């Protein structure tokens, strides 16, 4: 398992559109991917969970990945969330 703390740099937060794009990215990996915000643990392959988590610009979240392609998955997601 690998994880990393990141700051969300998507100006409109991780809502419908960016959230949806994030799911599309997450789906390309075999690993289980979670976003952790406060005490909420969000499955990155579940668009409604992401939406309900109300993740905004400048929020600090942790990306947690577990599985065979975890390194690459973490890198790709971090890049997407923080760019």
């Amino acid at each position: 398992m690998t994880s990393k703390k990141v700051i969300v740099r998507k100006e409109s937060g991780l809502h419908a559109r960016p959230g949806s794009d994030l799911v599309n990215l997450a789906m390309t990996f075999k690993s289980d991917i979670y976003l952790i915000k406060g005490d909420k643990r969000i499955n990155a392959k579940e668009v409604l969970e992401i939406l309900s988590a109300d993740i905004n610009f400048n929020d600090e979240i942790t990306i947690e990945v577990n599985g065979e392609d975890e390194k690459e998955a973490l890198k790709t997601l971090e890049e997407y969330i923080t760019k």
Partner: protein
Amino acid sequence: MKLLGIKVGNGLGLGKALIIDAKLPELNNGTTDSKKEIKKVFKAIDEAIVDYEEIIKVLKDDDLKSLTEFNKNVLISPSIKIELEKTITEQQCYGDVAIDIYFANKIKQLENLDNNYLKERAKDVKDIRHKVLAKYYGIKEFNPNLLKEDVILVSNEMTANVLLTDNLDHIKGVISLLGGKTSHIGILTTSLGIPSVFGIDVKNILNDELIFIDGNKGFVKTNLKDEEIKKIKEKIKIEIELNKELDNVKEAKTLDGYEFEVSANAGDLTELEKINSIPLDGIGLFRTEFLYLNKTTPPTEDYLFEVYKSFVTKLGDKPMIIRTLDIGGDKKCPYIDIKEEANPFLGYRAIRYCLDHKDFFKTSLKAILRASAFGNISIMYPMISSKEEIIKANEILEEAKQDLIKEKIKFKKDIKVGIMIEIPATAVIADMLIKEVDFFSIGTNDLVQYTTAVDRGNTQITSLYNWFNPGVVRLLKNTIDATKDYDNKFVGMCGEMAADPLGIILLVGLGLDEFSVNMNMVKRTKKYISLLNKEETTNFVDSLLTLTTAKEIEDKLNKYAKEKYGKFY
């Protein structure tokens, strides 16, 4: 009959009303064979996914694509089938019941969030539920591909599903009772260029009746006479021509070479992406409310700063006027303590609240000041009713500046400060107040409301709400004239009047410097200005100032507009 509603998607349309009955059968009661139901439910989901995938393939519009992509992603979620199977097995219920339970939970979660944007997304999830249930029951949904004649879609609660297609040629408009500008269906009609008006009850419209929809003004007309139909067709033809011409619009220069600034109103983060695709001269009104309203705790200085910075950086050297928080009893915020009031528009709001909550106000000013190091930013105070309030607000601004100097953070030291002119008392003494500020921005929506004592929402008196009321015109003139003695000061307008074809004539004539209009009205406003001659319009408007009724003023403007705008009016 003319039915007034809320304008959402711009444009005009004529077509036969097609009432879409969105009703599904009642949910099945009792218990049944779980295995068969699970299969049926999985098939419904798979079919719905295939539908969305096919739609995504043919769509060209990015907004539409990502919305459909979102719908698809809800259905391909790893948990959906697991949860549905569990419900059906455990409760031995029919599949439709399981589908309903699954989505009802998701919808409730979104609706319970303290964020209007996410609340709207709950409606999208309702659309998805509707689609999956329709598949489950084997109900054929309304299919725009089969349309053979021009229609206007009518429903009490329009689902966005009906527009997820590229075959839109026959859809001339959308009418719905429920939904708003930020609803899925609202965004869709706007981005697709389909005229839409919301807030109209289906029971006022007959199926198959020829109706007219005006998404520019926000009404629907039923029971049309032949003569009217002929006129409407002509109007639509011209509208199409005008739209073509608008694509080439760049600047708002009058025939005699005077250039006016036409900027946009903004405040929604989604507008950030549009800035570079519209020929706007700046942002004349940045509403900060949006950044405050969708939160459970006050936004931090850093957050506000980042948002302002991202906008002003995108604007390059174009100006951006940021209006400090305009909030009141009508817009609730959990961390802002404004009590229930009988008249929130005459109550404790905007600058009145901010001056009493100095630290809160100072934080918001510091964020604006910090962003001013990155572009051409000005500050504007709303709801000012007296000189004392300007002085008090400026004192707090000065403290904010001192704080930043102590913190060694950069900002524009001589940042321009202006006020909204929306309370009649300030319009009357504009010549006194201009000495205190760098600019005025006239907020006509409230100025007209306060001057004529008309609540815009009250349908019984809407005809009294008129910006050509001679009393209002005189206040406008007084305000604009007050700035004319100062070379380095200006006056703008950020209300709906600034985009009104007749309003534009009056304002060009009175010498307004800046028009700030909704993003989608920028090109149109520039086009109208460019069809006028400044000197001539000034003389014409002078002759209106002696007229004593709104009707006389409007009639004359109407005649002038026909002459100057020609086919575009």
